[in-house]
């Protein structure tokens, strides 16, 4: 049930209209960061206030919402945002990617491919990909205006000079439709190829930095690279220890003080779904039957 003390989806109507206008301009200029008047939300900055505002502006009562934090449905951030919208918008929630119509995500794209009709909302801490190279907003804005992205290539080149390869492993910069360089939010670069030509609408919200940007479906997104150092979507060279998946992004978990470790899918829904189908990994042990 919707909590009657709140407007539908928490925000007031004028705020939602303002966010909706920003989202539409973002859709019209893919990859460009649209400034918006970010509101204070009942959670601290850094907990997804940008994503929450974008989700609030897009939600309809018929939606089925999934929220993930680093791929997991059961972490604090994911649970609290899911409960927030269940309470203020009365929407159904789910942990299953295929059932969700709207997915708010912190730093992952689900392993199951997105479908048309789904909306993926990313929480973004620093939307400006050039910010750590050039701290002045006036300058970075000029660089986007003039398509002056040489500095970003210098950064990737210095990676190669120092480490022999591009060492940037997350928040890997992308170029959208050959025009704007965009920060894909801190998703692992393993997820970068999924951004391109997705059938779903992808929206990015940065609350503290007050920016919204967007990728319409079927938008071409290229990860920046060099001819002799092409982009590689990397992951740990292991299979999942629970579900034996060899093609999913893995988290490394330390399991004792003897150097023991295990690798598990970061996408909990994907991993549980595979185990339900009978896939068993190296360390999988079914939970003991509950006492009668």
């Amino acid at each position, binding site marked *: 049930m919707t909590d009657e003390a709140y*407007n*539908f*989806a928490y925000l007031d*109507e*004028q705020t*939602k*209209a*303002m966010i*909706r*206008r*920003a*989202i*539409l*301009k*973002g*859709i*019209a*200029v*893919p990859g*460009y960061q*649209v*400034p918006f008047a970010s509101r204070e939300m009942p959670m601290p900055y850094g907990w997804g206030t940008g994503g929450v505002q974008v989700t609030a*502006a*897009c*939600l*309809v*009562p018929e939606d089925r919402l999934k929220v993930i934090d680093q791929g997991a449905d059961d972490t604090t951030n994911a649970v609290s945002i899911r409960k927030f919208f269940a309470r203020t918008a009365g929407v159904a929630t789910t942990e299953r990617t295929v059932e969700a119509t709207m997915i708010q995500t912190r730093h992952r794209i689900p392993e199951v491919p997105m479908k048309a009709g789904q909306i993926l909302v990313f929480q973004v801490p620093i939307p400006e990909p050039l910010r750590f190279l050039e701290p002045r907003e006036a300058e970075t*804005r*000029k660089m*986007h*205006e003039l398509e002056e992205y040489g500095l970003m290539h210098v950064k990737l080149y210095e990676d190669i000079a120092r480490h022999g390869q591009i060492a940037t492993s997350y928040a890997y910069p992308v170029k959208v*439709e050959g*025009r*704007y360089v965009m920060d894909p939010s801190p998703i692992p670069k393993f997820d970068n190829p999924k951004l391109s*030509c997705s*059938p779903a*609408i992808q929206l990015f919200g940065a609350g503290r930095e007050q920016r919204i940007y*967007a*990728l*319409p*479906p*079927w*938008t*071409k997104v290229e990860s920046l690279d060099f001819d002799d150092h092409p982009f590689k979507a990397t992951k740990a060279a292991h299979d999942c220890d629970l579900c034996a998946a060899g093609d999913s992004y893995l988290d490394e978990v330390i399991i004792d003080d003897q150097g023991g470790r295990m690798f598990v899918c970061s996408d909990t829904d994907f991993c549980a779904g595979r185990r339900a189908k009978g896939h068993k990994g190296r360390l999988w042990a079914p939970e003991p039957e509950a006492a009668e």
Partner: protein
Amino acid sequence: MIADALAGGFTEAPVQSARAFREVLEAMARPGTIRRVVGALPPAPVSVAAGVVLLTLCDGTTPLYLAGAADCAAMRDWVAFHIGAPLVTAEYAAFALGRWEDLNPITRFRVGQPDYPDRSATLIVEQDKLTNQGPALTGPGIETANWLNLPETAAFRANRALFPLGFDTIFTAGDQIAGLPRSTRVEAI
């Protein structure tokens, strides 16, 4: 007359505007696809769809330009009561409503600034009908190609050439809407 102006708005604004926005979002994100919206009944000759778009996106902070037949006393009263958007000339408009011939010359509208391309106008263009026949549309949001009966192609091709500047367009007819953001490439016919 006053009674007309008071009627025809959303009866349950939070939910109706949310559903309407989802349709507008899908329309703009997939240029050329035709979607249906409901909930508004603006005075004639403004269509239901145009009324819904205004109620969903406009408020007191968005200067609005009414062109041609849409610029009538009944519509001005309706906008004043339901939306409160200041009515302005084309040059200052964030949103503009009218038929294509009334909105011309479209070079009057804001196309944004090189450093802030989002500061551009959104045109709500009233048509008699929307069909998926006409010039081919390609670009972001379109897998292969979509087709839409545009009033003309030259203006939209010129608009695309300004990218990332340019105006964005929402076509309306009856209760149907279709989007044409500036990023869409329009086939020359």
